[in-house]
């Protein structure tokens, strides 16, 4: 067993760690933040923000900001996004102080309510103007929460799309599928929180953790940037024996990637494997091989491995990808008419403004069809934002040069179509912001060292390849010839006549070209000539070949029944 040299992932002293900040806004955001606080696995500044002082009092985050303290007097926004926005604007100075100095700001909020929907865009804008990359993780309300909340959520989403660098959207309806319908509502919400917390943790870990094969923000954004795409996210962690297989199984089980089925048509897939110091090459190899069965060969796999002592004995697999809306539709075609979330193109009437603050009007009937589509969405920011307020209002003017750099940077980053397989030259976002150009070079050197080191011991493992030449899935799996489809029929003769390990293409998968099922390595047991030769030979008796044959009716009963039957049918 070859273990990674633990020295190889020593952090470079001259590269300061990326500072991340996670902001939880409103009730839902606060819950997610609580979850993250409890897990204690993310190395980030955690800030809880809420208008309601009582809720904020219960929050476990180390830093708390009461939005609009004087204006709201510690009372919640009451489902009115306008109030939420006002409150956030009121406390913008505090917010700016909290997010300032961080390279990445994650904002998580539950859209649809007052504080979350209203304050999130403001906070995103403040963070953006403070020079941070803004990732937004949001939940869309359950259908049963009513149309008004959905409309509020959608309006807020539109504003956020212009302000956040990447948007990961979860739909509560979909989350509900995580659990059985009869389970308690509390469990439903907890489960949703858990999944969001996991995704936040995974993303922040991926971009900040020094890895043997490092994945950067550029990889992340390229995995997420499909035009009009939705994010597919899967995360699995396991320990003990078979942890690699177990973790991958869990990651694929995520409802957001539909049991791995949605991966069949992704163009880019980001895979990140993290484990404690006991992570072995064999495990990584096994996981990648296994994963190769779930994605088509032409998929561009962005691959990262990191050793994190915090993980101890467990191993975590993260899958992130995105899928265009149309492709998703074709998959979900069987589902009831899908009401997709409106993306930036669709204009929503501002229902929110017409509503008297403080009153909650819920339309009783839920929307006709529960959205069946996988939910998280990554939205590339393309339009210039119409600012909610002047940047000068809240932050000291940023030097023009820097702004220019940023603008270029984001433009190149998010307007670009997914980069071709080996073109990774664009936008080293973080490094630029840190005003450092060296890390890349050094990282590469170091990894080459690792490679050299390992070459001595074993075959050059693909995982140790330099970052710049990304390993592709082809490196991990040996190509197998496509299976020969066999006519399907249910007669006994046909089933028997089929070779032992017949590959059958699942019918329902056909329209969107699933990867081939790599069925057991087979040594096509019998052709006609062989049968003639080997009839009754010792070979067919398997483990009974040394024993006295059990003859009955001219047949050797030790030869498998199906084999004898097959021969009879052939005759």
């Amino acid at each position, binding site marked *: 067993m070859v273990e990674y040299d633990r020295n190889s992932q020593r952090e470079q002293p001259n590269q300061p760690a990326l500072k991340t900040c996670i902001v939880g806004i409103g009730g839902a955001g606060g819950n997610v933040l609580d979850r993250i606080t409890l897990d204690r696995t993310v190395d980030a500044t955690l800030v809880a923000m809420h208008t309601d002082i009582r809720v904020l009092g219960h929050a476990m985050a180390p830093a708390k900001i009461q939005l609009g303290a004087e204006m709201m007097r510690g009372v919640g926004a009451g489902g009115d996004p306008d109030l939420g926005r006002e409150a956030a604007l009121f406390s913008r100075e505090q917010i700016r102080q909290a997010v300032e100095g961080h390279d990445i700001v994650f904002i998580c909020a539950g859209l649809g309510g007052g504080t979350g929907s209203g304050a999130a865009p403001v906070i995103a804008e403040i963070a953006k103007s403070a020079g941070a990359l803004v990732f937004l993780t949001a939940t869309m309300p359950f259908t049963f929460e009513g149309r008004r909340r959905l409309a509020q959520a959608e309006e807020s989403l539109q504003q956020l799309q212009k302000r956040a660098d990447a948007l990961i959207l979860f739909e509560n309806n979909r989350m509900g599928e995580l659990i059985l319908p009869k389970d308690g509502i509390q469990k439903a919400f907890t489960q949703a929180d858990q999944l969001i917390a996991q995704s936040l943790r995974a993303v922040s870990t991926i971009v900040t953790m020094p890895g043997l094969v490092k994945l950067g923000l550029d990889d992340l954004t390229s995995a997420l940037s499909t035009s009009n795409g939705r994010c597919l996210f899967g995360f699995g962690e396991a320990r003990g024996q078979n942890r690699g297989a177990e973790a991958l199984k869990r990651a694929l089980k995520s409802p957001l990637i539909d049991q791995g089925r949605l991966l069949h048509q992704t163009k880019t897939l980001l895979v990140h494997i993290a484990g404690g110091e006991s992570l072995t090459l064999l495990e990584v190899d096994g996981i990648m*091989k296994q994963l190769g069965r779930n994605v088509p060969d032409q998929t561009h796999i962005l691959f990262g491995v990191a050793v994190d002592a915090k993980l101890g004995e467990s191993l975590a697999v993260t899958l992130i990808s995105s899928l265009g809306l149309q492709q998703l539709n074709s998959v979900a075609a069987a589902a009831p008419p899908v009401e997709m979330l409106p993306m930036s193109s669709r204009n929503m009437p501002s229902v929110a403004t017409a509503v008297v603050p403080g009153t909650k009007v819920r339309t009783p009937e839920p929307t006709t069809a529960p959205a069946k589509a996988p939910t998280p969405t990554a939205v590339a920011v393309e339009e210039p934002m119409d600012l909610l307020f002047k940047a000068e209002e809240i932050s000291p003017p940023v030097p023009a040069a820097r702004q220019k750099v940023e603008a270029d940077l984001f433009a190149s980053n998010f307007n670009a179509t997914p980069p071709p397989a080996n073109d990774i030259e664009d936008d080293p976002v973080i490094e630029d912001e840190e005003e450092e150009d060296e890390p890349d070079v050094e990282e590469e050197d170091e990894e080459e060292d690792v490679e050299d080191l390992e070459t001595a011991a074993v075959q050059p493992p693909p995982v140790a390849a330099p970052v710049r030449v990304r390993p592709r899935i082809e490196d991990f799996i040996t190509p197998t010839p496509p299976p020969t489809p066999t006519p399907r029929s249910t007669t006994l003769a046909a089933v028997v006549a089929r070779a032992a390990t017949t590959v059958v293409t699942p019918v329902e998968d056909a329209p969107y070209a699933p990867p081939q099922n790599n069925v057991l390595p087979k040594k096509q047991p019998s052709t006609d000539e062989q049968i003639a030769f080997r009839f009754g030979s010792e070979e067919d008796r398997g483990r009974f070949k040394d024993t006295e044959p059990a003859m009955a009716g001219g047949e050797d009963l030790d030869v498998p029944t199906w084999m004898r039957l097959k021969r009879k049918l052939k005759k």
Partner: protein
Amino acid sequence: MAKSTIYAGLEIGTSKICVVVGEAKRDGTIKILGVGTAPSRGVRKGEIVDFTKVQTCLNDALVRAEEPSDVMVRTVFLGVTGGHVESQNSRGTWRLPDGQTEITEDDVEEAKEIARNVAISQDNVFLHSVTRQYIVDGQEGVRHPIGREGRLLEADYHIIHGVRGRIQNAVKCVREAPLEVEDVVFTAIAAAQVVLNRDAKAQGSLMIDIGGGTADFVLYEDGMIAASGCVPLGGEHISQDIAMALQVPYQRAEDIKITEGSCIYDDVPSDEMMRIEDDNGFVLGEIERAFLNEVIYLRTREILEQVRKRCQRHIGRLAAGVYLTGGTSLLKGIDVVARDVFGMKVTRAGSAPVSGVTATFENPQFSAPIGLIRYAQILDQEKPFMSPLKRLGRRMADLLTTAV
């Protein structure tokens, strides 16, 4: 007061070696004191091929049985099986000497002698000769002919015999362990003692003990054993078929059989796939569940059909139906297949309740070894043994009562 004797039953099976230590009480009950099992090596189709391997496994099983029961096992009842075991029914006819009308013990012995004098192969040796019934002047179903009036006495016997060398090899192997073999019992006979109750035997029933390498069967009719035998096919053949059909190692096939296998393939949707994993839990590939089940079904059906073929004459007169026991009887759907093959009621059964470890007697895998204890007990009851001291005591008591 019930006197009890401790017996040990030993079954050297194809898949496992099992030692059961039990207390047979005079009132007919059994208490299991300890059970020891060890996976079996060096046994093929119920017959020992590798002495040293078997002895190692046997010692493992022995230690495991001795520890909880706190008994040191010296002698065992050895269960044997194998494809060589055969059976036949034989009738001995004895005409009473002129002038004698009452049947005496000597006449019975004569009839028995004639009945047992069947032509079996030179190499073969009797395992059991079970009295089925006596017929006095054409009257069937006589249990105790001594003292009856009659002219013609017929003794009806069921004789089970096997190849001498093979049976002796088993005995020899156990003796080298070292253990003394008190009696050699055909496993099906032993298992039937605990699986079938008196009613089932009286109404007519067929018990099939499907183990790893063999399927042993006993058929009872009117409370009498009518047929018995052994089909050298068992659970290992099913696993072997799976291994060859799916091209996976034998052990993996065995696991698949236990966890996923079923004999029912009709209702399985044809596109339902099953994952096959390697040792590290990674998926090797997928196969159709219907295909796997059909492979299992074909073999299971064949095993049962082979049994049916051997007791064809008696089928149709069995009111209590078929009783399945042994490890392979745990296979999903085997009862459905058996119902199909035999066309009668099918019961999956373990041993009848005995006291002791509940999990043991409910598990059909242990039917035969527990049956060995019961067999020992029955032997004991048939020949009431009294120590001289006890006999003296009883006589004294008689004398005292008459004196008073």
